């Protein structure tokens, strides 16, 4: 028995749109915003670092991936999972990126860190890159009973 895919509505506070110019601001803004926002998932610090690593690899390639010197991200979080939509990107450079298989190329870094990486809404000119990062949400210890 199969069911049609269901698009889950993001709960309040679980989504964010960020656009940053591809100059010197991009690295510190992405690191700070993505780390803090993604930390709400309860993922381990090492996993959060891998998300930042993947997005930093994308940022380094941004001048060839975007048309207007602006890198756009849509973040959506759930417990134990971060979905990142990157775009709009130029379609052909984005395809080349995902075809990179040898480190330290950005495509290989993304493949090595993200659980899913795929292009969608692809036209001859533009595409969006969907990334999914999963992990085990850290268990929050129950408070000690008073008294």
């Amino acid at each position: 028995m199969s069911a049609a895919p269901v698009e889950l509505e993001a709960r309040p506070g679980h989504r964010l749109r960020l656009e940053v110019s591809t100059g010197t601001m991009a690295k510190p803004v992405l690191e700070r915003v993505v780390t803090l926002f993604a930390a709400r998932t309860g993922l381990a610090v090492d996993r959060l670092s891998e998300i930042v690593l993947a997005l930093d690899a994308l940022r380094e390639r941004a001048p060839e991936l975007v048309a207007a010197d602006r890198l756009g991200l849509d973040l959506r979080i759930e417990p134990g999972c971060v979905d990142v939509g990157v775009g709009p990107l130029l379609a052909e450079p984005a395809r080349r990126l995902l075809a990179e298989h040898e480190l330290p190329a950005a495509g290989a870094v993304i493949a090595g860190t993200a659980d899913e990486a795929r292009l969608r809404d692809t036209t001859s000119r533009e595409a969006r890159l969907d990334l999914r990062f999963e992990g085990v949400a850290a268990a929050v210890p129950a408070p000690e009973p008073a008294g």
Partner: protein
Amino acid sequence: MSLPAAFAGAEVAIALDALPESVAVVRQAVTGAGEGAGLPVGQIEDMALAVSEAATNVVVHAYRDGPGGPLEAGLWLDAGSVSIVVRDYGGGIAPRTDSPGLGVGLPLISTLADRVELLTAADGANEVHMRFPGADGASQAT
């Protein structure tokens, strides 16, 4: 979640739900932008505190009579200044006798920024415009 047309050309633009935990995210975006622009640490702290106050005003006051809405912030770098705009689509700024805050938000922003304006945008959004000195330490007055 989408960004408003008013943020076209911004160096950094962010939109997220107006919730208490969103204030820190906006603060980090501004701090990162200041670092990337090479601004002095003291000025980055002033900008971060001012934008935190403006964002907190949105969280506490803007959507108190409704189901909530977005908190938006944009940052622009000019030759001699940094401009930050914080936006919401709530009821606007009005006296509130039951305010949970101390009422020092806007006075504090006015102290930290060289210039502050409260505007209503063409799309109906409430905007707090703040201007700070640029990397050379002096903002360009208009």
